[in-house]
């Protein structure tokens, strides 16, 4: 394969698409209020820079010693300077020089920054690293300090200051270029071009720079604003533009000495500097934000219209089998979670009803996006605004969690309701010691002193089999292994005396061997203290092992509720499909592992009928038109399916086994 066949088609294909996308994005930026305002302001500044000297040079330079050092008047809007020259016109005319010098300095910055920034790519490892180290040291020094340093070398005056500001900005730009190009250089197409034998310089020009051009241009625009302000600063100090030339900084310096008598002379150039600086800055920021915005814009069409009618109807609800029995730890009826969406409210959890009895282990299974984690969070009152939770009943240990303030329930939930989250790495506060994070609970809810609470924490860590608990309590989360962290998280739930542990995918982030330990621990706690467990998992095998009962969720609803022992006789086709995806020892490895065909439903676009119908082998016309209710059978099992118990001929997995025994 020759170099050109690898390199050229890529560029040819990518370039027009990129260009039109860029144009569309910049166009979109100009349509936002900030973008349009900044764009107009910038255009005005640039127009003024071009035309002001042509139009008003004579007025600006007209010396009139009789009217020297006057304040603002109808004749001289911003007063006059020591030679009687009109300051307003001088400010207008100075736009040209101020902008020119800023742009020239920016150009120098960009050129040097590009050279230094792409050096690691061009020079190879060793030389590149040296350049990077140098840039890193230079970047630590603020621009103004570098500018002063270079101003000494290049000398006082217009050219010196321009070079000084150009050089001073280079390290930051070089660092940006380095970061951006390093990211692109990792991509596959660059690797392909490299393998194809393209030279480093050609790779840089063809594949790397075009892909980082946009952020570089944006930053150069913002940089031009910075250069303009820096130039004003240097001229203000007397190190920049020298008389008889004048830019805004020079005018400001001349005006400052007379600020008592005619402040306009200092304020007018000051305002000009701020406005021009803001114009460059805001325009750059608006474009930068616009580029970032495109990703969200691309995501919007997901919540498409057309299903709004179905969404606005009341969600189908599960009829409650019976009122909460006396030993119910958790009694949930018609739980719904709502989030505002681009096209009206989205309900990722729709009318979920279940109870958990003391000491019972209930599993919730379903694909990701089925609403199982949100159900867990909603039950724990942890859904934050803008999400909203509603329910016909939400009782924990007989206390109604729907009424009364969170404050009122804090103690009850803090001591009796434990939560274990999926990722133990991120679920602990990285900046606090483990022991303190546990102790906090007892201090807050059990009124223990600091040392008592810490002793309790050590005791609890021991209870969850963390070795050397005392030493471990003084360590930070990053010093724990994953499994140990998850055990500590469970220990945190045991600080009080929990009646319910809600574990949301507690083993998903762990190694298989460690998963076992964590599950055993949960099991042991349950047996010892008769604690109820709500285990959320996408893994049917885990639930089958640990739980007494399984709730199968699909598209925000419970579609089947059955004892774990009856999973082999599942009546909902989705439950059977889930089970079929679990490989066991009898799986024929020469065939592909079974998957559930199709994709889960987008919560923003719930269909009218059964949400599973599009993927269901049993689906009939009724399934598409009408959503089946969750019906309870005499044995207490619940299922929501028009074809409950039927088996499709081509159903994968264990169809032949269950075919003869529909419940």
């Amino acid at each position, binding site marked *: 394969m020759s170099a050109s066949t690898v390199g050229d088609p890529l560029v040819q294909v990518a370039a027009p698409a990129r260009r039109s996308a860029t144009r569309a994005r910049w166009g979109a930026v100009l349509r936002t209020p900030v973008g349009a305002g900044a764009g107009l302001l910038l255009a005005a500044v640039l127009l003024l820079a071009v035309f002001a000297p042509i139009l008003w040079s004579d007025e600006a330079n007209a010396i009139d010693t009789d009217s020297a050092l006057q304040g603002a008047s109808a004749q001289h809007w911003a007063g006059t300077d020591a030679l009687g020259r009109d300051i307003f016109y001088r400010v207008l005319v100075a736009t040209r020089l101020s902008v020119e010098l800023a742009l020239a300095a920016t150009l120098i910055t960009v050129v040097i920054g590009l050279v230094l920034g792409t050096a690691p790519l061009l020079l190879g490892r060793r030389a590149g690293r040296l350049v990077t180290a140098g840039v890193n*040291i230079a970047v*630590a*020094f*603020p*621009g*103004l*300090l570098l500018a*002063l*340093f270079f*101003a*000494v*070398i290049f*000398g*006082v005056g217009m050219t010196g200051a321009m070079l000084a500001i150009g050089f001073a900005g280079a390290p930051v730009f070089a660092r940006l270029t380095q970061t951006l190009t390093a990211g692109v250089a990792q991509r596959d197409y660059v690797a392909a071009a490299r393998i194809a034998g393209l030279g480093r310089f050609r790779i840089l020009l063809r594949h790397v720079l075009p892909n980082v051009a946009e952020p570089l241009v944006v930053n150069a625009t913002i940089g031009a*604003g910075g250069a303009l302000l820096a130039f004003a*600063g240097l001229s*203000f*100090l*007397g*190190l920049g533009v020298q008389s008889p030339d004048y830019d805004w900084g020079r005018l*400001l310096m001349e005006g*400052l000495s007379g*600020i*008592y008598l005619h*402040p306009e002379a*200092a*304020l007018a150039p*000051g305002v000009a*500097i*701020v406005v021009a*600086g*803001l114009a460059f*800055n*805001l325009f750059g*920021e608006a474009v930068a934000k616009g580029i970032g915005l495109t990703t969200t814009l691309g995501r919007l069409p997901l919540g498409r219209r057309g299903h709004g009618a179905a969404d606005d109807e009341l969600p189908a609800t599960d009829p409650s089998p019976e009122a909460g029995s006396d030993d119910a730890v958790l009694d949930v009826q018609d739980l719904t979670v709502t989030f505002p969406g681009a096209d009206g409210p989205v309900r990722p959890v729709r009318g979920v009803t279940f109870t958990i009895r003391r000491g019972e282990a209930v599993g919730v299974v379903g694909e990701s996006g089925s609403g199982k984690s949100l159900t867990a969070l909603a039950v724990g009152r*942890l859904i*934050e*605004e*803008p999400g909203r939770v509603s329910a016909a009943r939400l009782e924990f240990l007989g206390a109604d969690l729907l009424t009364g303030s969170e404050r009122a329930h*804090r103690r009850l939930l*803090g001591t009796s309701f434990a*939560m274990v*989250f999926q*990722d133990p790495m*991120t*679920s*602990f*506060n*990285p*900046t*606090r010691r483990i022991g303190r994070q546990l102790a*906090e*609970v007892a201090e*807050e*809810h059990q009124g223990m002193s600091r040392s008592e609470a810490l002793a309790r924490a050590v005791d609890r860590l021991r209870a969850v089999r963390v070795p050397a608990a005392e*030493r471990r309590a003084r360590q*930070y989360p*990053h010093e724990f292994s994953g499994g140990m962290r998850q055990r500590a*998280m469970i220990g*945190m739930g045991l600080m009080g005396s929990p009646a319910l542990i809600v574990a949301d995918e507690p083993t998903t982030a762990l190694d298989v061997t460690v998963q076992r330990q964590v599950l055993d621990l949960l099991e042991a706690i349950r047996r010892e203290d008769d604690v109820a467990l709500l285990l959320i998992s996408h893994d049917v095998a885990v639930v089958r092992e640990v739980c007494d009962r399984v709730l199968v969720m699909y598209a925000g609803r419970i579609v089947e509720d059955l004892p774990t022992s009856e999973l082999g006789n599942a009546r909902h086709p989705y439950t059977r499909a889930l089970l079929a995806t679990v490989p066991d020892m009898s799986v024929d490895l020469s065939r592909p592992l079974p998957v559930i065909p199709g994709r889960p439903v987008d919560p923003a676009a719930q269909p009218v009928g059964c949400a599973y119908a599009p993927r269901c082998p049993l689906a009939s016309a009724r399934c598409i038109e009408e959503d089946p209710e969750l019906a309870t059978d005499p044995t207490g099992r619940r299922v929501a399916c028009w074809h409950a118990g039927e088996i499709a001929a081509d159903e994968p997995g264990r169809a032949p086994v269950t075919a003869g025994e529909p419940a």
Partner: protein
Amino acid sequence: MTTATATRAAWLDDPWVRFGVRRGGRLLVSLWVLITASFLMIHLIPGDPVRAALGPTAPAALVAARRESLGLNDPLWVQYLHYLRGVFTGDLGTSMKSQLPVADVIGQRLPATLELALLSFGVALLLAVPIGATMGVLTRGGRRRGAELTFSSTSVVLGAIPEFLLGVAFVWLFAVQLGWFPVAGRSGPSSYVLPVLALALGPAAALARIMRVEMLTVLQADHVRTARAKRLPAAAVYFRHALPGALTAAITLGGLLLSALVAGTVLVENVFAWPGLGGTIVSSILDKDYPVVQGIVLVYGAGVLVVNLAVDVTLALLDPRSVIRES
């Protein structure tokens, strides 16, 4: 950190020791680069710096004598060694203009600049952290759009106005128009108000913005959800669990801003005729009094390095993970 007896290997494995060695090494390299750059500065100037300083009318004999006394006729490496020795013994040479030792000039001017920089640093932090964090809590999850818009536009504009223009505006408004504070100079406590505010407001606005964004990010974090699951009171969740995380990130980004504040003193001192290093370096550059310029550049540079070091150490204390992270 370990309870075991501190063997040599364990001592070397201690993350804090390793952090100290790594960070100290970086400081030394940066210092060396700074010293070398300030040494080379005088040699990079096109033409003869002594001739430039004394002017074209100065007799050739005087120029030659001055070159000799400055050691400019020695080989470059000898001059470099002399310079290094001078820096470490506190001998920074003599001003060409006033014939005073540069170290004395700096010693005289440095306190005023330090006061200004430290006060502004403190004010910026005191303003930015509470305001930014509170705004983060108030506007989380898209709440209070109006407040968010007001806050971000105010802080963007305030952050974009350079400190010397803010100074000029303050002088006009509060000193000339209202007469609340003196126009310039360093006298009583009231003379500090305007220069400190002029220096602090810009960085404070930028830092408050960063602080709010970081706070929003941390409030989304899993461990904040854990804190809420522990049913801690809102204040404990926000200020015990969320704030430290937001602070670490804000300090990293704010470090650059605050070292820019060190350089910003130069401009603000010139607005307020503050008797610090800023005025001295500008007049020295204009007078081509290079030994003084060299000395002051060293002091400013060292100040920036110290700020950066302080930022890294603070970070290490706030977030123990950063100790083991390679920078």
